[in-house]
């Protein structure tokens, strides 16, 4: 049992490494995400001018930028396999769970990378201050993880359909809604200087959401992945 789990993890890491190598070489997803994030931030920054926005506006703005940036790039991890006809090759050599975990690791890494770029830019361009950095880091970590989880399983589903781009946003939004609501609420608390204990309920929601979505994804992926 332990050796088969270890083998599965090893195979997932090999898939992750391959995707990372491909992305590093082509930069398809990275460019799409970074371009969307920077463009949106610039537009918002010019629109508001020197006005300082309050936390009720800033928190949703941050998550809108993160959510739509993620949407613009995270589906690529499965779409590329179908478009380049490598999906069947992968089906033949890697167990479905290892494919899913490998792609999930890749999307998590990509989203954390996006957050590292977007967060400082956002607070500089919006001229905003974070009062509780611990809350912000926790919510960004768990929220990002949840977004990557949603994006990965939806990407697997839409990759085999014809109208990929439209479907991805349409399917991701309702599933990611609980994540966005909790993340926005906690981000508001972080901007207002609340104590860490005040955001524990939101963090619990985000953590539970992650557990549920990853477990469900592992259970259903084999049926999605197999033709």
């Amino acid at each position, binding site marked *: 049992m332990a050796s088969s789990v270890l083998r599965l993890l090893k*195979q997932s890491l090999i898939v992750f490494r391959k995707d990372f190598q491909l992305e590093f070489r082509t930069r398809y997803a990275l460019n799409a995400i970074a371009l969307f994030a920077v463009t949106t931030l610039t537009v918002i920054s010019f629109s508001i001018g020197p006005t300082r926005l309050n936390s009720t506006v800033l928190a949703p703005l941050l998550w809108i930028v993160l959510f739509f940036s993620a949407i613009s790039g995270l589906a690529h991890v499965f779409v590329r396999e179908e478009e380049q006809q490598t999906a069947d*090759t992968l089906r*033949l050599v890697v167990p479905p769970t290892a494919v899913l975990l490998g792609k999930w690791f890749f999307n998590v890494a990509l989203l954390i990378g996006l957050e590292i770029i977007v967060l400082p830019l956002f607070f500089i361009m919006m001229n905003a201050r974070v009062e509780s950095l611990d809350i912000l880091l926790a919510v960004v970590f768990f929220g990002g993880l949840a977004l990557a989880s949603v994006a990965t399983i939806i990407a697997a589903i839409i990759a085999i359909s014809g109208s990929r781009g439209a479907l991805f946003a349409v399917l991701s939004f309702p599933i990611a809604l609980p994540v966005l609501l909790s993340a926005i609420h906690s981000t508001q608390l972080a901007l207002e200087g609340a104590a860490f204990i005040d955001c524990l309920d939101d963090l619990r929601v985000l953590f539970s959401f992650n557990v549920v979505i990853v477990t469900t994804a592992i259970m259903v992926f084999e049926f999605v992945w*197999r033709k």
Partner: protein
Amino acid sequence: MKIVVENIEKKFRYHSVLKDVNFELQSPGSLVITGSNGSGKTTLVKILCGLLSPTKGKVRLIKNGNEIPAAEQRFHFGLVGPYLQLYKDLTAWENLLFFAKVRGTQPDIDRLKNLIESVGLKGREHEELKNYSSGMLQRVKYLTAIYHEPEILVLDEPTSNLDEAGKNFVRQTIAAQSEKGMVIIATNEPEEVALGKQRVEIA
């Protein structure tokens, strides 16, 4: 090892492609699947390798009297087919390493170098596959399919895009595989049909 194909039927919506396909192949041995264009050779190949589910029927792999579970069957195959692509943004070397590692085999650098040399790609192995010709790509596909020494090698249109040297490599590979395991070839080329000891014709 034995492969048993029982009453395979495949329908795509209302269009029936395969109907009542039955055969058995024992290791060591070779089998050729023939049939006109659109008869379902590729569909059958994909079903054998676990890439498609049959509408009816079953593919059984029996090793030492024990049936291998359906979910694990595909790992006993090596497949070369025009619809099976490699990562064109990676080099041939990177592709070979990826497939060797992900299949759980320890990459043997000397063996990999020898294989690359045997298909005439020495000196080009560190180029990205997008710069390769279709014949060169076909050779790399062969290497990824045979490196893990599969018990069953399945070849769909085995010599397409290959020059005479490439065809010789394929013939040698088929001869070697049919002595130690099984080879299943889907083709209509008379030269390739002669390479199999058993023959299954699908209508």
